[in-house]
C-alpha cells in the first residue's frame, strides 16, 4: 500500500541517494545534500506555518512504498514566483496585414512574461521506483487534495511545467535555438546553475525581452515547442485527467508545455467529497478505487483504497488498516475522490 505524506527530516539521506539516479534535465528535484536539506527545511516550515495568503511556502511530499522506502516525490509551491517573478514564454499570435497587397497573416511569437507568478505551481514529481507506477496518480494528485483541504494556502489557479524534449544526451533543440544564444552554455549546465528555477533575476538579465518570432527558429526547435519529454508523459496524462490543459505557455528553457487549470476545473476540488471515516469490513461488491486523504492540514496522509461508496451517505467505511495508515480516529473527516 502506497501512502503519500509530507517529507520529514529523516528522509534526507534516502532522497540524496535517489536524486543521483534520476535523469538530469527532466526533473526539478534538488540534487545535492545541501539543496535537499534546504528543500526539506523549507517544507517543514511551510507545513507548520499558518499563512493568511499563499506566499513563499513550498510543500514537499514523498510516497512511501509497502516496505516504507521512498517510491516517489512531488511538490507544490504556494506561489510560483515566491519572492521573485516566475517567467514563462507566452505563445502569442501577432497579426500582420497589408491591405494594398491584400495579404494578411498571423505570425506566432513567444514573449517572455510573468503571467504565472501568482499561480500555485506543481513541481518535483518524480517516481523513483518504476514498479510504483500504480501509485503515480496518487503521488501527483495528493498535492491537489492537500490544496483542497487547505485552499487558503494556495492560489485558485495552478500550473505544472512539463519537461520538454531533449535527446539522449540531454541536448534540447529549443534551448540550442534560444537559451544558448544568451547563456552561452549547454542546457544541462544552465539547468544546474539555475537549479531548475524560473523565478531568478538572471532570467530577466539574460533572456530576450522582445518577442521571439517562431518562424525564425530552426525546424527542430519549432517541432519541440510545446512537446513533452518521454519521461514526462506519465505526469502529463495524470494531470490531464485531473483537469489540467496545455494552452499558450511554454517553458523558457526547453519549450515544454505549461499545463494550467483553475481549481474549479480540477477533480480534486470539484469532484471530491468530505465524509466521516469509520472502520469496518465494507461490502466490496462493486468496489471502485478511491483516493482518500485526511482532511487535516497537519500530518497529512493520502492513499488509494478499493471500496464502495454509498452516494447519499456522509460516511465511508474503511478497513482498520487503512485508518491506521491515515492515522485517523473513527468519525474523523476524510476527503474522497474517485481515482
Amino acid at each position, binding site marked *: 500500500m502506497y501512502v503519500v505524506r509530507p517529507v520529514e527530516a529523516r528522509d534526507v539521506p534516502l532522497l540524496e541517494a535517489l536524486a543521483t539516479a534520476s535523469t538530469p534535465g527532466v526533473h526539478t528535484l534538488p540534487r545535492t545534500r545541501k539543496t535537499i536539506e534546504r528543500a526539506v527545511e523549507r517544507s517543514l516550515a511551510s507545513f507548520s506555518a499558518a499563512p493568511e495568503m499563499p506566499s513563499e511556502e513550498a510543500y514537499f511530499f514523498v510516497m512511501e512504498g509497502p516496505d516504507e522506502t521512498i517510491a516517489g516525490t512531488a511538490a507544490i509551491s504556494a506561489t510560483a514566483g515566491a519572492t521573485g517573478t516566475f517567467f514563462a514564454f507566452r505563445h502569442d499570435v501577432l497579426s500582420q496585414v497589408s491591405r494594398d497587397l491584400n495579404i494578411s497573416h498571423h505570425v506566432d511569437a513567444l514573449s517572455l512574461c510573468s503571467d504565472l507568478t501568482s499561480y500555485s505551481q506543481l513541481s518535483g514529481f518524480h517516481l523513483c521506483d518504476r514498479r510504483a507506477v500504480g501509485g503515480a496518480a496518487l503521488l501527483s494528485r495528493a498535492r491537489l487534495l492537500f490544496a483542497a483541504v487547505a485552499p487558503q494556502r494556495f492560489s485558485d489557479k495552478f500550473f505544472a511545467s512539463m519537461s520538454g524534449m531533449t535527446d539522449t544526451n540531454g541536448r534540447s533543440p529549443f534551448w540550442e535555438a534560444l537559451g544558448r544564444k544568451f547563456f552561452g552554455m549547454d542546457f544541462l549546465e544552465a539547468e544546474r546553475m539555475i537549479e531548475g528555477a524560473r523565478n531568478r533575476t538572471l532570467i530577466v*538579465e*539574460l533572456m530576450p525581452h*522582445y518577442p521571439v*518570432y517562431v518562424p*525564425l527558429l530552426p525546424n527542430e526547435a519549432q517541432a519541440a515547442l510545446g512537446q513533452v519529454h518521454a519521461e514526462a508523459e506519465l505526469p502529463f496524462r495524470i494531470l490531464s485527467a485531473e483537469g489540467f490543459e496545455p494552452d499558450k505557455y511554454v517553458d523558457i528553457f526547453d519549450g515544454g508545455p505549461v499545463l494550467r487549470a483553475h481549481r474549479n476545473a480540477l477533480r480534486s476540488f470539484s469532484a471530491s467529497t468530505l465524509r466521516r471515516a469509520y472502520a469496518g469490513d465494507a461490502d466490496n461488491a462493486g468496489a471502485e478505487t478511491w483516493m482518500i486523504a485526511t482532511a487535516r492540514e497537519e500530518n497529512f496522509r493520502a492513499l488509494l483504497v478499493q471500496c464502495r461508496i454509498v452516494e447519499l451517505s456522509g460516511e465511508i467505511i474503511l478497513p482498520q488498516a487503512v485508518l491506521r495508515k491515515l492515522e485517523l480516529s473513527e468519525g474523523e473527516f476524510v476527503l474522497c475522490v474517485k481515482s
Partner: protein
Amino acid sequence: MLVVRAIREGDLEGLLELATQVGPGMTTLKPDRAALGRRIEIACASFAETIAPAQRDYVFVMEDTARNRLAGVSAIKSAVGLDEPFYNYRLGTLVHSSNELKIFSRMDTLYLSNDLTGCAELCSLFLHPDYRTGSNGKLLSKCRFLFIAQFPHLFPEKLIAEMRGFQRSDGTSPFWDSLGRHFFKMDFSRADDLTSLGQKSFIAELMPRHPLYVAYLPQEAQDVIGRVHVDTAPARHLLEQEGMHYEGYVDIFDAGPVLQARVIELRAVRESEMATVDDLSGDVAGVPCLVATNSMQQFRIIATDAFPEQGRIGLDDSHQALLGIHAGDPVRTMALNPKKILHA
C-alpha cells in the same frame, strides 16, 4: 568629349534608350516612357527651382558631345520617405549580462526603422557599357558631390546611398531566405518586383516589427548583413572615398548596406575650391580634376587633368566649350581622387 550636365526636356529619347540597357534591379530607371517623362519634368523643375527643395530630384546625364548621344545618368533625390515610408533595418547592440553567472554577451540586434526619412539619396547611376573606361564612372558618380558642394544649403544634413546586397551565384539572397521569406510567402525575385513597383512600404508592413537578435538567423545570413553584391563593390569604394560610410543601416530584403555621410563631412564639401578660369594652350602637367560650373540650371561638369593653384585654373578652349564658359568665369574644382584614405 564627355560632359555631365543637368538633364533637359529634350533628353527623353536618349534617356529611354539608356534605360533599355539597364536590365532588372534598378527600380528608378525602367524603360517606361511615361515614367521617365514625368521624372524629367520633375528634374527640370528641380534645376529651375520652381518646386520646393524637399521635392527635388536632380538628374544628371553624361553627354558624348561628339556623337550627340547620352552615355550615362545619375541622380540625387533631395529627400526620401516623405510620400511613402522609407524602411530599413538598423543594426544596434544590446548587452545581456549577469554578474551572478559571469556572463556578458553583446548581441547584435535589428530594428525596423524609418530613421533615414528626409535624407537626400544618391540613386539611378547607370553608365552605358560602351563608355565604361577611364574616369567616366568616377565622373558620373562624383559629379553629384560637387553639385552638393556647390549648393549645400539645398540639402538636408544627411546623404545616403543604398547599395545592392549580397546574392548567391544563383541570384538568391541568404538574408531574404532566412528572414523575409518567413513573413511574406513569396520568393526574393517576386518581392524584388513588388518593390520596383514602389510597393516597399507594404512589404515592410509584413516584416517583424519587434527588435530581432541577429543570433536567431543562420550563420550564412548573419555573414551577409551589410555586405554588397560583388558587382557593387567598386561603386561602394568610390562613395567611401568621398566620405560616405556604413553605419549599420541595411536593406530590409537583402541586408545590403546603406552608405551615409553628413553633408558637411563630404570630401567635396571640405576640399573643393573655387577657381577662376585662365586660357591655356598646349599640354600642362596636372592631376585628374573635376571641374564644374557654378550655375544650377546650366550645371556642367567634366573630368580633366589640370593644375588649380591659388584660385586659378587653366583650361583649354575645348574644355571651356564643354563647360559653356570662358576665361575669367568661376568654376568649382576638386581632385578626382582623394590624396589618401585617412587612416583606413
